[in-house]
């Protein structure tokens, strides 16, 4: 594995890339204890927010905070524009793909994607078959995970089209950086992200059912206080200025969704839902669900309510489907994909499987339906025993796995025990799609692997976050 590309110092480490000029100067001026002091201050502020919001203190108390790194990750305006174009293209293609899969199925008929990869996929929802949604938008909010390997090359690592989370960190990280480092801000021209909630609300309202006669009512549907992302749900509802509802606050009568308010039933037009498909309507999906709204799917089918994201979008999160994204972009848009896919071997295909089994120690192997960095093998760092155990798992159910080369994610200067050192990062921008097209707030959530050499940025496995600055101009 070649040395990683550093976002500040490039490949060889002897230049300072232009976007990092000011930061690099600042880092050399600022005494180390000030950085450390600020880091602790940031933690205090987060803990206070945590104390007041998070699922903190249920008997076994203290919920772990996701570590925050005070050194921002910076992108130049031209880098961002490149990404923005690529993301827009990709999300447009995703929407067309999902529409097709639940409609005409042209991509299956054309033989581009094998039928069983869709039909036998747990994330495919037969119940959505033939269902039209307003403006043909299925994925209203997408989180596309991006990694970078050199100055020019970005790869998409994963598409999150279900209910991507983490946007509250993007907003909070910016807020906290502005509080802690006002002078560093004044030395840069940084594109703002705080209009994200406004853009989100605008997008959500724009996809209200066509029949909505008035200003649409939007709500955010949460599984409730016991959900690990509840903090984000309440944070967003607050910022959007919409009601944070649970399933029991909504009901369906004559195929119209209402919420129970102190002034009687109030009609709901758009539901930004953070409840998974399986739980959203006990009369259609899991009948033991108490988190959903009975009859919601019939109101949805009648076109009287918009769900964001639509039901069944998880099909696009599947890692085997992901491997077809270049073909998907070409099929629907007739364009070459602007963002690359990480080369992917589908273990369901015999030749691919053979290659993967022969090269396990160099590859990253992932479950097709997995997320959060669980259930994967990182060949180069795995023990021989672990590799052999994984080999057996892989052979038993090859359909469940894909494999990718181990990529050297770019690094970014990060505040760690021994001072400032490079650590691997990725980026999740949030892509909004509404009636008037795609909107992306410049920035996103940068996740950083705090352990030296680690490539796993997931917060569940010791990753942290950074503020992401996109420079104006």
């Amino acid at each position, binding site marked *: 594995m070649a040395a990683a590309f550093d976002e500040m110092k490039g490949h060889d480490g002897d230049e300072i890339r232009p976007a990092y000029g000011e930061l690099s100067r600042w880092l050399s001026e600022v005494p180390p204890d000030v950085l450390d002091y600020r880091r602790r201050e940031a933690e205090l502020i987060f803990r206070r927010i945590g*104390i*007041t*919001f998070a699922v903190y*203190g249920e008997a076994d108390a203290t919920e772990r905070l996701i570590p925050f790194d005070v050194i921002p990750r910076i992108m130049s305006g031209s880098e961002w524009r490149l990404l923005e174009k690529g993301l827009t293209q990709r999300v447009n293609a995703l929407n067309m793909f999902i529409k097709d899969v639940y409609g005409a199925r042209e991509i299956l008929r054309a033989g581009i994607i094998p039928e069983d990869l869709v039909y036998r996929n747990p994330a495919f929802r037969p119940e959505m078959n033939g269902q039209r949604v307003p403006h043909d938008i299925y994925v209203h909010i997408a989180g596309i995970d991006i990694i970078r390997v050199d100055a020019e090359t970005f790869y998409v690592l994963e598409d999150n089209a279900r209910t991507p989370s983490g946007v509250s960190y993007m907003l909070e990280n910016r807020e906290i950086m502005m509080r802690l480092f006002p002078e560093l801000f004044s030395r840069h021209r940084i594109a703002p992200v705080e209009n994200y909630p406004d853009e989100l609300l605008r997008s959500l309202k724009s996809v209200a059912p066509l029949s909505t006669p008035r200003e649409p009512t939007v709500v955010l549907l949460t599984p*409730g*206080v016991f959900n690990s992302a509840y903090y984000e749900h*309440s944070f967003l*509802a*607050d910022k959007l200025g919409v*009601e*944070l*509802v*649970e399933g*029991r*606050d909504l009901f369906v009568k004559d195929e119209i969704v209402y*919420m*129970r*308010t*102190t*002034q009687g039933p109030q009609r709901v037009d758009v539901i930004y839902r953070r409840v998974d498909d399986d739980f959203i309507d006990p009369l259609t999906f899991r009948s033991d669900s108490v988190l959903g709204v009975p009859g919601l799917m019939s109101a949805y089918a009648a076109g009287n309510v918009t769900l964001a994201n639509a039901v069944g979008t998880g099909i696009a999160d599947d890692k085997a489907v992901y491997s077809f994204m270049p073909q998907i972009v070409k099929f629907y848009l007739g364009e070459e994909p602007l963002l690359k896919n990480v080369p992917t071997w589908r273990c369901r295909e015999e030749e691919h499987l053979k290659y993967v089994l022969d090269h396990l120690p160099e590859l990253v192997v992932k479950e097709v339906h997995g997320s959060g960095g669980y259930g994967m093998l990182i060949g180069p760092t795995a023990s021989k025993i672990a590799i052999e155990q994984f080999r057996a798992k892989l052979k038993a159910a090859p359909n469940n796995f894909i494999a990718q080369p181990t990529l050297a994610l770019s690094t970014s200067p990060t505040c760690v025990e021994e001072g400032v050192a490079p650590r691997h990062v990725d980026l999740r921008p949030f892509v909004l799609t509404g009636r008037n097209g795609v909107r992306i707030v410049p920035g996103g959530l940068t996740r950083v692997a705090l352990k030296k050499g680690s490539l796993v940025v997931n917060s569940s496995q010791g990753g942290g976050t950074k503020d992401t600055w996109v420079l104006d101009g």
Partner: protein
Amino acid sequence: MLSRTADNLYWLSRYVERAEYLARILDATQRLSALPLAYVGASNEWESAVLTAGCATGFFKLYDEANEENVTDYLAFSTANSSSIRSCFEAARHNARAVRTALTMEMWDAINGTWLELKRYGNGPTSREEFSRFLRWVQESSLRYDGSAYRTMLRSDAYWFSRLGVYMERADNTARILDVKYHLLLPDNERVGGPLDYFQWAAILRSVSALTAYHWVYRDSLKPWLVADLLILKDELPRSLSSCYEAIVRNLDQIAGTYGRQGAAQRQARGMRTRLQNSKMDGIFQRGLHEFIGEFITENNRLGGAITEQFLL
């Protein structure tokens, strides 16, 4: 607003108010039971505390007799009692968490801080002194919550539902004391009672923090019908039935005004307020104090049902 949010705010306030009331009962009982027998007679004050707290059925399922140890445990710390002080604070925080964004930072700090501190008291006090400190802490916690709501909440329906909870619970509590102790307040009781009742009357007043208030209002020694008058009809006393209903009506009027819609709850509350306003103590005694209180409790519960039905479901 969401019915569930209103429901959570309403119950959050009720639970905090209930915790304070329990602390006051326990405080008054502790004082009574500390007196020599000659001053209080043979009645079991601890049993009376359980009755006043309204948890007799649950209590006697667990214990055969009421004494200081098991009553303080059951009313203050027991997890088996869903209305113990501990359970009340836990339920209050549970409700608060569910409507975190409808609360001000100060209210959340007050209720969350109380809940965190509750853990410090573990499974009960080790001494009477510590228990007294605990009871004071409970009252202070309630004051802090109440004060932060009063000082920081936006005057909108969220505030009114939260106040409604306070006054509904308060009216219920005051009525409950009267229901258990009414026989001490009958006018002819003075003849049979004598000096021994002074401490009982004082204990009743203490339970609603009205001992000093009594003297300011009547400038007289303790007389049972005046105690009844104070607790039932005096608007000046914040825990009197009349004062509670003044506040209930005011809050329901605010809600109706904002929503531009009147309803069963408001009509019913106004009816009760009018009845209290038009009542005189001798009339109540003539018709029977016990019957009056019994009817009040029934009506108050009915109003609770009407509020739930109209707004909270």
